[in-house]
């Protein structure tokens, strides 16, 4: 039986990789995928804690996180496609419209 701390360590590694991906990449699609990676790392931590505490509440939270992530991806990808239609380019460095 693997101790839960290992799962939490793996979750920490995946989360850090996701953060680096969000900062390093310029393609909004890949940034989005890195965000999904971070959400999944957090979900893994939830499930590991749920297992450690012998409670199902963590799993319920993960269910809601999944639902919100699905909604977020649908709207986010629609926004990215709309931006692409408008500007014909797709780099986060060009999207400075809302910067003061």
């Amino acid at each position: 039986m693997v101790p839960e701390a290992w799962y939490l360590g793996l979750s920490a590694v995946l989360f850090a990789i996701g953060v680096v991906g969000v900062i390093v990449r310029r393609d909004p699609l890949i940034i989005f995928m890195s965000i999904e990676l971070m959400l999944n790392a957090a979900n893994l931590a939830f499930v590991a804690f749920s297992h450690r505490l012998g409670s199902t509440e963590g799993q319920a939270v993960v269910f809601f996180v999944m639902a919100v992530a699905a909604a977020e991806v649908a709207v986010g990808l629609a926004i990215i496609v709309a931006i692409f239609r408008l500007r014909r380019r797709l780099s986060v460095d060009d999207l400075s419209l809302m910067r003061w």
Partner: protein
Amino acid sequence: MGTATFVILAVIAVGSALGLILRRNPIHAALFLAVNLGTIAAFYLALGAEFLAIAQLAVYAGAIIVLFLFAIFVLIPAREETTPDPRRPYRILALPIGAVLLAVLVAVVAMGMRGPAGARTAPDGVQAIARLLFTDYLFPFEVTSVLLLAAMVGALLMSRRREG
């Protein structure tokens, strides 16, 4: 799950995550993400969350990856990352930031694991989560449906071509 299985799956998970952020081609990135989500589903299974493992495969590996692939097909002409990066010096800063974040997270995990473990009565899988979702979390569960509907309408509205 045995130690060997865990180590193999963890190496696959970390490797696919690294592939996701290192490959230039977004399609490769999406496929690496699918692999990563699959290994996480396997971890859910090992932790006694059978329902979440199946939901992970259906929602993430099924729906979300397909959505990403469709978006990539629509956006294929926008291959932006082939040009040299004008802001490379700033982006290199991500590595120390990531390293510090990882150190902090590992320290927190190490500190938190020193306390006593909980009851460790294995929750009885699907039944337990079903009971929870339809009693204590009934209201959030119903609100989720409204959220999904709003997201669907929003996505339709956003991706519609403007007439005239």
